C-alpha cells in the first residue's frame, strides 16, 4: 500500500467516523441524559436524507435543502418528544424499545407513502464538486473533506455547548438529579425537549450532508442505527467524548478492514466492540 492510497483510506475512515459521530452523539445524549433507548434514531438519519433529496429537487440546491431541512428536523424532534417520548421517562426500558421500534415501522411506512420505494441520488453541490489529485491516477474528492470539516465544527460546537454554557451545565445536572434541577427553578422538561430535538437534528443533518455520497434509499437508517449503537457501547453510554473516540475508531477500522481483510470486513467493528468490552466493560469513557 503506497502512501497516497493509505492517505485516501485514512481520510475516508475519518470522514465516515465523523459522520457516525453526528448520529451517535445524539443517541448517546438522549440515553445518557433522559435514559431513553431510542431505536428510531436511525430513522432521523433517513428522514434527513429524504428531506435533502426532495428539497434539493424542489429548490435545485443542496445548501437550500439543508437550510430548510434543519429547522424541519428540529420541529419534528420537538413534536415527537412532546407527543410521545416524554411519556417514557418514568417507564421501563422495555416500553421505550417497544415504542421506538414501533416508530421505525411507522416512519418507514410514511416514507413509502410520501416518497415511494425507489432509490435516489443527490448531486454533489457544484461548488464542491472537485477532486484534489494525489498521484497520476488517485485523487480525493473535495466534498468528503468538506463533510469532515463541517462534522468537526459541529462536534466542537457540541463540546462547547455541553461543557461551557449554562444550558450545558443544566443538561448535565439533569442527568444526575432531575428533581433537584427543577427545584432550582429550571424547566427540565423543556430542556429534555431541546436535547431530543438537537439529537434528531444532528442525525437528520448527517443524513442530509451524506446524501450525495450514500444515495437515498428505503431502510437506510437501519444499518446506521446498529453501527451507532456499537459506537455508543464502545464509547461508554452517555459519553459524548466516548462517542467521538469510538466513532473514529469504527470509521477507521471499518474502512481499513474493507481494504486489508475484505473477507472479514462485515465482522470487524463487532470484533472491535467485543475486545473493548472485555477490556473495559463500561466502554472507553463509561462510568462502571
Amino acid at each position: 500500500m503506497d502512501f497516497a492510497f493509505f492517505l485516501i483510506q485514512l481520510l475516508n475512515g475519518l470522514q465516515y467516523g465523523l459522520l457516525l459521530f453526528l448520529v451517535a452523539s445524539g443517541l448517546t445524549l438522549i440515553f445518557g441524559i433522559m435514559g431513553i433507548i431510542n431505536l428510531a434514531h436511525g430513522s432521523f438519519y433517513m428522514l434527513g436524507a429524504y428531506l435533502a433529496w426532495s428539497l434539493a429537487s424542489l429548490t435545485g440546491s443542496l445548501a437550500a435543502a439543508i437550510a430548510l431541512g434543519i429547522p424541519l428536523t428540529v420541529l419534528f424532534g420537538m413534536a415527537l418528544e412532546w407527543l410521545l417520548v416524554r411519556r417514557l421517562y418514568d417507564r421501563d426500558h422495555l416500553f421505550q424499545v417497544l415504542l421506538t421500534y414501533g416508530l421505525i415501522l411507522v416512519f418507514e411506512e410514511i416514507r413509502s407513502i410520501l416518497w415511494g420505494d425507489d432509490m435516489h441520488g443527490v448531486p454533489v453541490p457544484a461548488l464542491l464538486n472537485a477532486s484534489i489529485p494525489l498521484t497520476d491516477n488517485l485523487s480525493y474528492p473535495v466534498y468528503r473533506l468538506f463533510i469532515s470539516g463541517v462534522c468537526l465544527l459541529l462536534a466542537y460546537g457540541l463540546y462547547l455547548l455541553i461543557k461551557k454554557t449554562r444550558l450545558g451545565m443544566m443538561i448535565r445536572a439533569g442527568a444526575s438529579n432531575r428533581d433537584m434541577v427543577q427545584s432550582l427553578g429550571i424547566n427540565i422538561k423543556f430542556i429534555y425537549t431541546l436535547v431530543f430535538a438537537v439529537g434528531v437534528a444532528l442525525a437528520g443533518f448527517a443524513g442530509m450532508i451524506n446524501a450525495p455520497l450514500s444515495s437515498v434509499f428505503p431502510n437506510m437508517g437501519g444499518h446506521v442505527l446498529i453501527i451507532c449503537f456499537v459506537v455508543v457501547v464502545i464509547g461508554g453510554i452517555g459519553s459524548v467524548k466516548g462517542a467521538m473516540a469510538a466513532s473514529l475508531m469504527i470509521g477507521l477500522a471499518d474502512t481499513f478492514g474493507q481494504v486489508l481483510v475484505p473477507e472479514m470486513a462485515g465482522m470487524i467493528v463487532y470484533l472491535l466492540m467485543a475486545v473493548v468490552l472485555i477490556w473495559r466493560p463500561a466502554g472507553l469513557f463509561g462510568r462502571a
Partner: protein
Amino acid sequence: MSELLLEASGLHSFYGISHILHGVDFSVARGECIGLMGRNGMGKTTLLKSMLGLVRPKQGSVKVRGRDVTQTEPHIIARAGIAYVPEGRGIFPNLTVRENLIMAARAGVDGRCEWDFDRVMATFPRLSERLANGGSQLSGGEQQMLTIGRALMTNPDLLILDEATEGLAPLIAKEIWNIIHGIRASGIATVIVDKNYAAVMALANRSVVLVKGRVVFSGSSNELSDNEELMHRFLGV
C-alpha cells in the same frame, strides 16, 4: 400579619400506597423562621416535597404568595422565590463546584440580585479553594455549603433546609448553624428541619411539630422548649 409566602391547607399526601400526611396546615410569612420538628417518619420531608411540587398531594391546597400552585410544576414554584436544600444534599456530582453554583444563578422574584457568585464565595471561603473540583470530591460539610450556596444563588425569599447538619462533625455543624443564622438575619424566611431541636428552637420564632402526619403543635418556640412534657411526648427528649 405580613404577607404569607407559602401556605398549605388540609394536605393529604401519599408515598406509594402509604398515607403520610393527614390534613396538614402549614404557613410561612415573609422573613419568618420556622422549625419543623418531629421524629423520623412523621412526614416532615413529605410535607416539604408536597409544598414544592415534588410530591402531588391527593387533597388540600398549596399557595405561594396567594396563588394556588397545588398542581404547578416544581420549577415554577421555585421561581416564585422558594429554594430547597434537600436531605442528602442533592449536589450534582458530575459538575464542578463552580458549575454547580453558576448553573443555578437567577435574579429573585422582584429582580434583586443580592446573592451572586462573589457573595457566595465570601460566605463560604472553603468552597473558593475547591472551585474546579467535582462535586463528589468534597467533604460532607463542603457539600452542604455548596447546596446552601447554590440555593442562595437563586435569590430566594424562602429557604427550606431539610437536615442540613445531618452526619456532620460538630465543628462543621456549628459552622453551618452560623451560616443559617446569617441567612436568617439577612431577611430570608427559613424553614428548618433538623435533629438538633435546641439549635432549631434557638433560631426559629415558631415551631411546628408533626406526629404521624398531623400537626400536633404550632406555636412559639419558647412555648415548646419550656414545656418538658410536650418535648418528651412529641419529640422523645
